[in-house]
């Protein structure tokens, strides 16, 4: 089954057609349907999926969201929808097991559309509509929110609020903005296909080494991973700018992060915000209500731990990914606890002075970099008996 391939001329042909078709259209409804047509055409041509089957899934999602937004049957539909999405997610994440369970036939299609990301968008729109934050999407918006072709490969994960609040007809793109968008796409392609590729070819062995080179490879692997992943995001953001479709930023120099909380403000930002909206804050609020606002530090510790263990399992249902999530949870808990005690001891002004000291900043950056690099080693290391 074909996947989203950025090196394929088909991908860029569809991008060009999307820009050419959508740019002159100023009628909001027509623009929305054209965008949905482009997304479905992408699924049919690039991914070679049967559009009717995909449209059937999207229609089911659309109808479920309508019911979620109208009051009656909200709760059972929310639970049934969540269960269906979870089943599809597990099938997608466990291809070998899903074959044995006799449901492997749907897996290639789930893999082709990058269902991990569709799953997160489904949860986000479901929660917002269930809570009454925004109206449910119309059919075209369901397609455009759940399967935007330029965000299928590796995100970003746009929030439903951000999607629905964007102007129906964007301001015309100026020549300078168009150049900036093309520069962003070129930078992403250069990062992925040139810099990351060369680094990978020259320095990475898949951790089939030991000794000092292994330590070196851990550092280079983080850099390679960042360039490859942020390259994807640059391309998506650039295409979004050209088409006038809001596409969130995903990276902000994560290698400069001075602690793990700072790191998640800079790395895969759209996932970090998703975790906050859909896991961390709901859990924190539920626990705060039960304890009447007491034990804030303990509540944050539990919320960080559960959120990031689940975040690890979202990346992959296996022990290495669980361990990756545990490492990030531990890093966040330690940072939060340290920050709490530091504020207690030094006061707000003291903490500000502490933060301004160069030595602490450099030390924090070094420790954070190493912690993240070693967490990536856990998922990339060729463990015997595991397929991470």
């Amino acid at each position, binding site marked *: 089954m074909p996947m989203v391939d950025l*090196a394929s001329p088909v991908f860029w042909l569809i991008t060009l057609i999307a820009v050419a078709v959508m740019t002159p259209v100023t009628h909001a409804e027509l623009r929305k349907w054209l965008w949905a047509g482009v997304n479905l055409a992408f699924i049919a041509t690039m991914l070679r999926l049967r559009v009717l089957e995909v449209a059937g899934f999207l229609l089911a999602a659309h109808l479920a969201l309508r019911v979620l937004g109208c009051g009656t049957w909200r709760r059972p539909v929310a639970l049934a929808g969540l269960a269906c999405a979870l089943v599809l997610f597990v099938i997608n994440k466990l291809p070998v097991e899903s074959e044995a369970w006799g449901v492997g036939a749907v897996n290639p299609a789930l893999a082709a559309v990058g269902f991990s990301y569709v799953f997160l968008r489904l949860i986000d729109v479901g929660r917002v509509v269930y809570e009454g934050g925004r109206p449910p999407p119309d059919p075209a918006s369901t397609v455009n929110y759940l399967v935007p072709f330029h965000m299928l490969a590796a995100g970003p994960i746009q929030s439903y609020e951000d999607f629905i609040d964007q102007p129906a007809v964007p301001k015309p793109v*100026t*020549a*300078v903005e168009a*150049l900036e968008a*093309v*520069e962003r796409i*070129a*930078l992403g*392609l*250069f990062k*992925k*296909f*040139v810099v990351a*590729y*060369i680094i990978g*070819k*020259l320095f990475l062995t898949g951790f089939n080494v030991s000794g000092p080179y292994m330590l070196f490879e851990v550092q280079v692997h983080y850099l390679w991973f960042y360039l490859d992943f942020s390259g994807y995001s640059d391309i998506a953001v650039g295409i979004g700018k050209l088409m006038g479709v809001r596409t969130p930023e995903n990276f902000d120099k994560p290698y400069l992060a001075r602690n793990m909380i700072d790191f998640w403000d800079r790395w895969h930002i759209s996932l970090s915000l998703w975790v906050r909206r859909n896991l961390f804050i709901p859990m924190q609020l539920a626990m705060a209500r039960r304890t009447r606002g007491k034990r804030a530090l303990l509540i944050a510790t539990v919320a960080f731990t559960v959120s990031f263990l689940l975040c690890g399992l979202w990346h992959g249902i296996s022990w290495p990914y669980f361990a990756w999530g545990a490492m990030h949870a531990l890093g966040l808990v330690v940072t939060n606890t340290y920050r709490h005690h530091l504020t207690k001891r030094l006061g707000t002004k003291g903490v500000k002075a502490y933060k301004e000291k160069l030595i602490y900043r450099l030390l924090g950056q070094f420790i954070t970099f190493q912690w993240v690099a070693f967490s990536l080693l856990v998922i990339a290391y060729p463990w015997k008996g595991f397929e991470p």
Partner: protein
Amino acid sequence: MNESIAEKASGDDLSGWRWTYRLLRVTVMLVAAYWLSRTGDAFFYQGF
């Protein structure tokens, strides 16, 4: 005043060498990415 600065900045961006330099940079990045995405594995020494 801010508007005139913005107009001036965008005007500068679109004029002369700066514009040419940016287009050239984009072209180099795109050509390199295209070339390596097509011939990368042949280009690199496989025995490393």
